[in-house]
């Protein structure tokens, strides 16, 4: 009696496309994380001083902290609409692996918010006086790091479904867990700026991303199932 279900890669692509379609219908919201990212980095020259040598020395930290906050804030409402209207329940009942469906959703989210953030990094880097030679490492580390952060933050977003809506809860839960990403990413960028080999940081980020890719979908599916109860 089991229906011959579609293979899961098809369904992954389908969910991915659905998310993109939805996001493009609200395209003005897509720009928000990037604008936030640029705004936060602007705060530092204003708050400290526009002295180029100072800005250069704090640049990796500033860019990474801003990217971390932008990623987490953009995830706040990732599952909210689909949870409220019952779509996630239908996904759970569809017979497809819920983890794969949710991974499709997170992947689309990263492509729509994380990638623009990576692409806007040169502007911020230039404004903070980072050398062009470090740009490759900055963007590479941001690409790996924001992907890992999207995965990690998605778990937080799924866990906060059905809570009294406190806006800081997600950050409170996930910031401590996100610290390794921040450390590896900022350090790789810093080393690249001082002409040192940034390999270790990049490899560690890649390792984190792989670990997150393998563990997060399971945690996500569990968290979403719990939210139905």
């Amino acid at each position, binding site marked *: 009696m089991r229906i011959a279900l579609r293979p899961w890669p098809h369904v992954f692509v389908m969910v991915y496309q659905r998310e993109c379609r939805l996001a493009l219908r609200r395209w003005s919201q897509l720009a928000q994380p990037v604008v936030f990212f640029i705004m936060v980095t602007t705060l530092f020259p204003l708050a400290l001083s526009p002295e180029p040598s100072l800005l250069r020395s704090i640049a990796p930290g500033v860019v990474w902290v801003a990217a971390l906050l932008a990623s987490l804030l953009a995830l706040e409402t990732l599952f909210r609409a689909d949870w409220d209207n019952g779509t996630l329940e239908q996904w759970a009942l569809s017979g497809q692996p819920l983890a794969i469906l949710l991974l499709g959703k997170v992947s689309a989210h990263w492509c729509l918010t994380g990638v623009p953030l990576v692409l806007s990094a040169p502007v911020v880097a230039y404004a903070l006086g980072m050398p062009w030679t470090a740009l490759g490492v900055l963007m590479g580390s941001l690409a790996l790091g924001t992907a890992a952060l999207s995965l990690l933050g998605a778990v937080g977003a799924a866990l906060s479904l059905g809570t009294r809506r406190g806006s800081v809860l997600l950050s409170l839960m996930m910031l401590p*867990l996100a610290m390794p990403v921040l450390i590896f990413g900022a350090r790789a960028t810093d080393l690249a700026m001082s002409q040192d080999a940034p390999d270790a940081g990049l490899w560690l980020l890649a390792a984190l991303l792989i670990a997150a890719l393998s563990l997060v979908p399971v945690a996500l599916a569990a*968290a979403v199932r719990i939210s139905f109860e």
Partner: protein
Amino acid sequence: MANFTWFYRLASPPTSYAAAGRLWLWFAVPAVLLIAVGLYGGLVSAPADYQQGDAFRIIYVHAPSAWLSLLGYSVLGVSAGIGLIWRMKLAHALAAAVAPIGASFTFLCLVTGSLWGRPMWGAYWAWDARLTSELILLFMYLGYLALRSSFDDVSRADRASAVLALVGLVNVPIIHFSVNWWNSLHQGSTVLRVGGPAMPASMLVPLLESFLGFTLLFAALSCVRLRAEILMRERRPTWLQDGLTVSASHE
């Protein structure tokens, strides 16, 4: 499911409530004795350190609390996992009971660490790798407690926070590694060395006593808090009323 009925019976509220009630004294009495002996040995009998003077004596509180901060999170993560996989309410109750105790020991570890830092580094806080790891661990406890408190329904709070605890447990070694890596790239501060073969017996024995004593204290506190958690979760408190009337009639 049927195969696990014995398991559920063992973990039934009346049984576990009574067991925790008997156990806690068995932990508490030796805990108090050992802590008293260990602290007397450490703070009074042991000779002063030739480098650090009397300041080193803080490790008799600092080191056990650092150990218990980690043990607390491990117990939290493991019992959360058991609760999640076998849907065992007692395990969730234990996780809920242990979290604030672990957080308190983490806080105690940070406070004693910074008190120790004042004479050593000349400041109450330095970005030492161990202390920074402890600080992040405290944040993890706080995040866990924040998630738990933001649900109205106990069983959902249990299960959602259990997922967070497991994700956190996987992350503890990663965080520890990343902080060490971060620290090694900067001019590292002096690292607080604990124990080691260089320590003479007059210093080491009290340290072991206080390690054991604080661990038993942790167990005793867990039992007391577990009893409270079981009571708060009980929806059919008839056994409780029966128990209370029985004990009242005895008096």
